[in-house]
């Protein structure tokens, strides 16, 4: 069984020899340790061959994992990709979480940031990791060739063994370390020298995820579990509205709670330091009536229902300018003018909350002089967590020792640039009797009230068909609460003011629709927003795939047949759609239920879905009996994990489609906990049937990809069952009942 040299920290005591071409910087050697470390960093065993791989004489192979683990499996799959090309014996591999050094471990598909998001880990790291693995293998072969005085070309490898077939000699990777000379320049590896998919030993073959055994016996360590000697606890009362600051603070009641150490003013709230979590939470509750807030911040007065009405009006108003022509192909306006048949539709989507199971938290200890800190947190973005901690203390990032742990769910909530839950711990530790470590935890109510939501959006669509019924024009204007400028201003600038979190998936490049236009019309409500598993695609595919069903209905063609025609230039798409039709027995009529289908391409992953639904007309409740789903994500690195991600993503998508909604009144979140923010439970989950079609294409993402397929498939099934088209997500009982009349 594989070991996991974690969940602690990946700082090595020694420097790595850097010879990967293009990397010319030095890695900090033996960083100063500060504070009361819960555990020592693992000393990586053996000889470093590059920043990613070290091999010990025992044959143990340490491989760096550059992505954080939130259940998606990257902690296993990324090192496994490298190990395959290295031809490592997987049972000898130790996985080491990489330190937060973006220049080495950043994702090439993520502006080089060390950010685990957008389901881009396998997609972005696949080729670099294979290349690094191949380089190490080449160095091993060259050393053995020299040692045995044979041509390198006569050598081959079996898992962790170099073999000279001619002479029958064999030598283990660990034995090579004794005489290995590591060249100053990495050997060049041509893409064609990498393994062919048929030669993969690990890729495509399911292995046990390395941290899974720790998740059935309570030994997995999340940030909330970190125990540091002498640690105290913190809780923070935040403004009910984003951007509000405390005005008057009457802390008498809070200070009267037994175990409270101090009450402190923060720029955005009031913090309690206490000896126990229970004292901290009780004191925070006691503060609620004693604190008044400055109405700073933009969202005061904002009402999300009224806001959405205004968005919808602006979407329909063709004189309201778009800020970015998000996607343009042909001339949609001209084609609409010439169309024989024109259609229009409006759709709306509401705010939704991540609801990761581990409430936000972090632990920090700040040095007595305030010039250094050690931080423990669960983050999707280690380099940002380090930077945010440094900004909070106004010290250089190098003075922050960051330890990142497993995440109790991420879904986008732990990936924004501000990392405010980490800043909480750092600021509270600064206010404590330094260097006393402080664990700051949010309650579930804190987590809901201060969530960063998927945005509200209003969509106005127009379609044009020519005399033959062909869809020739597709035009969408999207008015939505901005995400990227709030979540990560630097990425927004790098993206030329294109808010892909809001607009993701709005273009239908894979469909044969010659004239398309999508316009971005962002609004800034002041409400916190964030990428949420599926980002803009959740709304935009709900809208597009629902509207296309309306077009198919207008033309009186079968909606699946209609999409197969639209996919005439996308054969991989046709294949996944046909397959899901077979699985669901699409043509068979059901009693009291109906099927609806959808197809999406999401960052080059092709997905089809079919939902089977029934409706309780008296309550308006939609019941989903079955959900069939087919995916082609190229090379299937870990097939069962892909299925698992899809099963889970479909459940996540069902919640967003049916019950999950955040509403804002006077700038404040109205929901509190799982009693009024309803996520899916076991009794509501349909039978889910997932099939992966592996192909030899470059692997693409799976974590968030299934989420957007759900709502449109369900909506299309409801329309077929009832003849009524729902136009607002989530499709709550109240909305369904109202629509059915």
């Amino acid at each position, binding site marked *: 069984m594989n070991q996991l040299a974690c969940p602690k920290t990946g700082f090595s005591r020694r420097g790595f020899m850097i010879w990967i071409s293009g990397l010319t910087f030095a890695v900090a050697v033996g960083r100063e340790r500060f504070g009361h470390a819960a555990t020592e960093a693992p000393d990586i065993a053996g000889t470093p061959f590059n920043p990613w791989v070290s091999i010990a004489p025992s044959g143990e192979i340490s491989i760096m994992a550059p992505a954080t683990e939130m259940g998606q499996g990257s902690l296993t799959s990324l090192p496994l990709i490298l190990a395959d090309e290295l031809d490592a014996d997987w049972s000898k591999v130790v996985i080491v979480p990489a330190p937060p050094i973006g220049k080495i471990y950043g994702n090439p598909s993520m502006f080089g940031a060390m950010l685990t998001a957008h389901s881009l880990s396998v997609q972005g790291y696949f080729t670099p990791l294979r290349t690094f693995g191949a380089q190490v293998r080449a160095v091993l072969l060259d050393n053995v060739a020299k040692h045995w005085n044979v041509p390198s070309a006569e050598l081959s490898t079996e898992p962790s063994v170099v073999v000279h077939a001619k002479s029958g000699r064999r030598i283990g990777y660990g034995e090579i370390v004794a005489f290995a000379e590591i060249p100053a320049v990495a050997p060049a590896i041509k893409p064609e020298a990498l393994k062919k998919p048929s030669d993969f030993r690990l890729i495509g073959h399911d292995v046990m995820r390395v941290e899974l*055994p720790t*998740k059935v016996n*309570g030994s997995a360590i999340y940030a909330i579990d970190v125990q540091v000697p002498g640690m105290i606890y913190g809780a923070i009362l935040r403004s009910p509205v984003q951007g509000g600051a405390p005005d008057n603070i009457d802390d008498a009641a809070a200070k009267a709670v037994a175990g409270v150490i101090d009450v402190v003013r923060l720029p955005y709230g009031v913090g309690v330091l206490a000896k126990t*979590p229970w004292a901290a939470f009780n004191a925070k509750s006691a503060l609620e009536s004693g604190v008044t807030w400055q109405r700073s911040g933009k969202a005061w007065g904002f009402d999300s229902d009224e806001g959405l009405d205004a968005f919808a009006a602006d979407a329909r108003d063709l004189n309201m300018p778009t800020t970015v022509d998000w996607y343009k192909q042909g001339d949609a306006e001209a084609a609409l003018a010439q169309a024989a048949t024109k259609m229009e539709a409006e759709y709306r989507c509401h705010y939704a909350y991540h609801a990761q199971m581990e409430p936000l938290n972090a632990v920090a200890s700040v040095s007595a002089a305030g010039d250094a800190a050690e931080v423990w947190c669960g983050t999707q973005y280690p380099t940002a967590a380090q930077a945010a901690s440094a900004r909070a203390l106004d010290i250089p990032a190098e003075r922050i020792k960051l330890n990142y742990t497993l995440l*109790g769910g991420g879904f986008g909530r732990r990936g924004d640039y501000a990392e405010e839950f980490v800043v909480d711990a750092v600021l509270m530790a600064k206010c404590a009797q330094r260097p006393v470590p402080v664990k700051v935890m949010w309650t579930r109510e804190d987590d809901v009230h201060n969530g960063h939501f998927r945005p509200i959006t209003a969509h106005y669509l127009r379609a044009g068909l020519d005399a033959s019924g062909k869809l020739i024009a597709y035009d969408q204007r999207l008015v939505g609460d901005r995400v990227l400028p709030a979540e990560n201003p630097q990425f927004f600038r790098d993206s030329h003011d294109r808010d892909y979190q809001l607009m993701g998936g709005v273009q239908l490049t894979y469909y044969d629709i010659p004239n398309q236009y999508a316009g971005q019309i962002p609004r800034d409500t002041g409400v916190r927003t964030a990428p949420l598993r599926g980002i803009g695609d959740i709304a935009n595919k709900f809208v597009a795939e629902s509207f296309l069903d309306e077009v198919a209905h207008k033309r009186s063609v079968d909606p699946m047949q209609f999409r197969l025609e639209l996919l005439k230039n996308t054969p991989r798409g046709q294949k996944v759609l046909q397959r899901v039709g077979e699985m669901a027995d699409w043509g068979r009529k059901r009693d009291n239920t109906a099927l609806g289908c959808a197809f999406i391409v999401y960052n080059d992953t092709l997905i089809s879905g079919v939902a089977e639904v029934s409706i309780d007309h008296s309550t308006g409740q939609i019941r989903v009996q079955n959900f069939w789903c087919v995916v082609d994500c190229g090379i299937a690195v870990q097939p069962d994990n892909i299925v*698992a991600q899809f099963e889970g993503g479909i459940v996540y998508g069902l919640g967003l489609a049916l019950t999950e909604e955040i509403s804002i009144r006077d700038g404040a979140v109205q929901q509190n906990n799982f009693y009024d923010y309803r996520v899916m439970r076991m009794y509501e989950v349909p039978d889910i049937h997932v099939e992966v079609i592996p192909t030899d294409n470059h692997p693409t993402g799976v974590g968030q990809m299934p989420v957007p397929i759900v709502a449109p498939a369900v909506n299309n099934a409801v329309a077929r069952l009832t003849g009524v088209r729902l136009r607002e997500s989530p499709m709550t009982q109240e909305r369904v009942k109202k629509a059915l009349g």
Partner: protein
Amino acid sequence: MAFQFTVNSSAVSVDAPADTPLLWVIREELKLTGTKFGCGVGLCGACVVHVDGKRAFSCQTQVSNVAGKEVTTIEGLSPDSSHPVQKAWLAERVPQCGYCQSGQIMSAADLLKRNPHPTRAEIVAQMSGHICRCGTYLRILRAIERAAREAPSNAQHVRAEP
């Protein structure tokens, strides 16, 4: 105020206000962090433990209420992850983020102890008190069915039948 009880067969004495939720005592006093905080209102099940052999939501159980009782946490379910439910959880590759799974496993173990061969509906009824935000519900279902099938006592039970 001090309260005496046993946790995973060890006697403990905890000095805490009587209304302190057992959850926080287990996690932050006794450092048994496998039991999780999820909602604080008994709606997610991440905090489920056994008290005197029956499942309890530790966020809704005051420490004063377990005085003199036996508490079992995920760490005490088996010494080596050998409980049939734990084995089935790995065989079905259930966990994703894993945060809710301690509670899920404790509830599943509680169900199978009372009802070694639950129907699917009985499993769903027991487990719908839990939330898994990663959506592993179908694997949880399969794992409980597997555990029921493969538990040594259940296997004997099956063999005993004609």
